[in-house]
């Protein structure tokens, strides 16, 4: 019951108003129209015409997409952002009618203005009422999608749901040591120290690893406990925006204070000694070996570790609200971002741009959106009390998110608006409990949604940012590891960053931001 209640609450917050149902009203063309498509993503390297979702879309719209993917075997890599498949497609000179990919934003924003992709502003205004309606509600997202010339060149994948990562802690260890869930950074430190010194796993050795993380930048996020900032978006080390002003977390006073304290924690053994090299197996290893105490990680996947209770007596790993910082703020810096750089665009040789934008718009209609999110009615889900509910059979057929894209649903190389309720039905109960906990507070802060540079700004960014980021990370790691002292080096650090063009970089970021989001 709790599950459904939450589902309804979240849905109400994000539902779109959509036109009424009518048979054939979604039809775009009388005669079936064939359009070519490049679709490339790490998990689905080509467009497959027999995806059930696509077959349904074809029947409803009359638009028949044909796979024409170049570089399919390259598989755009999510993590490194490699876009060779797109590059090869563009180089080969045959741009299909539709191009869908992860990491498409920078690509179309560079080559769209050169003429490779069709500008979408007017087309959306005239022919895509559902997309236009979405943007009317979220002008910030419309701004985020635009290139430096003010045109939109792609229709994005828009994630839904607010929460991404959370603080997690071994609550059974807290019980064993007679401790409460920490409410402040000072208490958190005490708890981590108790984990280290009081042998909560009871094996007689001080082998516990109080704080660990699969990705070490999650450790840096703890500077928010000292009122600093780390990552301004879901990209690590990104800039941040605060009241319309662009800044970077790694030059703030709170960051300095945070790093100083994290260095102390590291030295005391409160942080995994090998946090920088343990990598993706950290969570699996440390939790299943009954060693790990606390981490900062995704709601959806971390809650699942409670199944370890069948092997480790009493094992409970639960989300906790962010401890209050030294300044008394409870901040969860990470959230699901509102718009991804993924989606699809229209190639410049497309002779049916109106039909194509109408097709894009189809996925923003109520039926289209449901199709993109849940799959095919009667096959993957049933409508129960007006809500799409996955069939038991589908839920049990393996990892649900994988099954979805294998059927052509939840494809991030397609522009669509996610509906978070698709996820609630199969999210782990500990994760849902955690999300509910976070719902009760107001811990999230706005994300930086990125900027599109003009040529001059791009030049400054290209010249400075890579070096600046490398330097900041080098210093950061050496401070935490104790091979250098942040207090002693801070002024030199800031001076060096200014030497490397930090102020200039912030200035171009700001000018791009002001232009794009209309200060």
């Amino acid at each position, binding site marked *: 019951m709790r599950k459904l209640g939450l589902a309804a609450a979240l849905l109400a917050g994000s539902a779109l108003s959509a036109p009424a149902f009518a048979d054939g009203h979604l039809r775009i063309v009388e005669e079936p129209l064939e359009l070519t498509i490049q679709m490339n993503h790490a998990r689905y390297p080509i467009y497959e015409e027999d995806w059930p979702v696509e077959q349904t879309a074809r029947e409803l719209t009359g638009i028949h997409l044909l796979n024409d993917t170049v570089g399919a075997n390259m598989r755009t890599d999510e993590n*490194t*952002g*490699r*876009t*060779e498949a797109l*590059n090869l497609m*563009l*180089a080969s*000179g045959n741009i299909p009618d539709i191009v869908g990919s992860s990491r498409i934003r*920078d*690509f179309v924003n*560079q*080559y769209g203005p*050169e*003429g*490779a992709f069709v500008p979408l502003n007017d087309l959306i205004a005239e022919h895509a009422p559902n997309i236009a309606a979405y943007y009317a509600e979220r002008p910030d997202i419309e701004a985020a999608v635009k290139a430096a010339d003010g045109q939109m060149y792609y229709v994005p994948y828009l994630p839904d749901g607010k929460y991404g990562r959370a603080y997690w802690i071994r609550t059974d260890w807290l019980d064993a040591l007679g401790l409460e869930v920490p409410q402040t950074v000072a208490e958190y430190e005490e708890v981590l120290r108790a984990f280290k010194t009081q042998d909560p796993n009871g094996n007689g050795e001080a082998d516990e690893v109080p704080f660990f993380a699969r990705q070490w930048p999650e450790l840096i996020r703890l500077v928010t406990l000292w009122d600093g900032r780390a990552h301004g978006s879901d990209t690590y080390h990104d800039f941040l925006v605060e009241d319309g002003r662009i800044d970077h977390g790694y030059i703030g006073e709170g960051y300095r204070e945070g790093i100083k304290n994290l260095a102390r924690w590291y030295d005391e053994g409160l942080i995994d*000694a*090998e946090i*920088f*090299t343990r*990598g993706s197996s950290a969570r699996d290893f440390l939790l299943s070996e009954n060693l790990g105490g606390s981490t900062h990680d995704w709601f959806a996947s971390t809650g699942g570790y409670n199944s370890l209770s069948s092997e480790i007596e009493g094992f409970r790993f639960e989300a906790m609200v962010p401890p209050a910082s030294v300044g008394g703020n409870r901040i969860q810096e990470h959230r699901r971002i509102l718009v991804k750089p993924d989606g699809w665009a229209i190639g410049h040789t497309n002779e049916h741009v109106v039909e194509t934008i109408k097709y894009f718009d189809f996925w923003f209609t109520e039926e289209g959106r449901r199709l993109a999110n849940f799959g095919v009615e009667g096959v993957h889900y049933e409508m129960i009390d007006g809500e799409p509910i996955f069939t038991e059979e589908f839920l049990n057929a393996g990892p649900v998110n994988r099954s979805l894209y294998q059927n052509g649903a939840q494809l991030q190389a397609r522009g669509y608006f996610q509906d978070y309720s698709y996820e609630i039905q199969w999210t782990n109960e500990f994760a849902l409990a955690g999300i509910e906990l976070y719902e009760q507070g107001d811990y999230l802060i706005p994300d930086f949604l990125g900027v599109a540079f003009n040529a001059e700004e791009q030049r400054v960014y*290209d*010249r400075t940012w*890579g*070096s600046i980021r*490398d*330097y900041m*990370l*080098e210093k*950061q*790691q*050496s401070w935490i*590891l104790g*091979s250098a002292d942040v207090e002693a080096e801070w002024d030199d650090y800031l001076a060096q960053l200014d030497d490397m063009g930090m102020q200039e970089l912030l200035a171009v970021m700001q000018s791009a931001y002001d232009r794009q989001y209309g200060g």
Partner: protein
Amino acid sequence: MSDRNSDFGGLPVDELVAKADAALGQRKTRVRDSHWVRTWDHFRREWQIYVMLLPTIIWFIVFLYKPMYGLQIAFKDYSIFRGVANSPWVGFEHFQTLFSNDQFIRAVRNTVTISFYNLLFGFPAPIILALMFNEIINATYKRTAQTIVYLPHFISSVIIAGIVITAFSPTAGIINTIISWLGFDPVYFLTQPEWFRPIFVGTGIWQEAGFGSIVFLAAIAGVNPSLYESAVVDGANRWQMMWKITIPSILPTILIMLIIRIGNIMEVSFELVILLYQPSTYETADVVNTWVYRQGLQSGQYDLAAAAGLFNAVVAFVLVMTANTLSRRFSRTSLW
């Protein structure tokens, strides 16, 4: 010919010139004749080797030289959409961008330093290994060991790096376990700049020495056995035979491999660096390829990456030309 007006041994200049021209003309025709004749003769006699060479040359032209026009993007503001020909020239702008970046300079320095260590330790390793194999008497032992040592070459760098990271782990790694037994404090090797190069070069030897030894084993197999037979008669021991016979006999192979290795000075195993380095070790670990990769140039900015690549190629080529010239002079072995 420019000295027409000067005085040559009292003879009138014009006369002299006329005579000289006549002589020259005569010699020219004669040279041309004999040149053509000789060339014709040569090809008639030796046409077979040209026929044998031709497919290879055509292959190189079609597959490697023809697309080399792509190198010019190092001097262009390259747009994939516009194509190489239609992208505007920017001269040396990309090179200026590279050389005004301190971290790029550092990466060049690191690349050369790591390559130097690779040359110093990594290059002799397979030779020593091959020489050692040559000393093993038991044939089964020898064959088995040979088969095993080249296995790591087939295992991806990701897995090799995973093993290295585990081995050097400060808490559970075998290296630190030994260090703790000996009564020292554990070291977080992979975050310490001074440890990166030894670990990296050592890993390279471990992974590639076995495979690298194959070419030297082949060279040793080609040594004339009668040389050893007469050495045995002279009472030489194995150590002396190795130094006096084996090593001199495989020297051309060693030199060729050395020259090629020098030519690879700007190529440090990119994948392995990416897997083993950390921001805290960039100082010693960051090489040109990883720097280029981290700048995000691998996907979009082909032009700047091409400039870095061209710089690497030119440096390597100059070094190889030097090594090749020296080798030609002192040993007759050369790449060209």
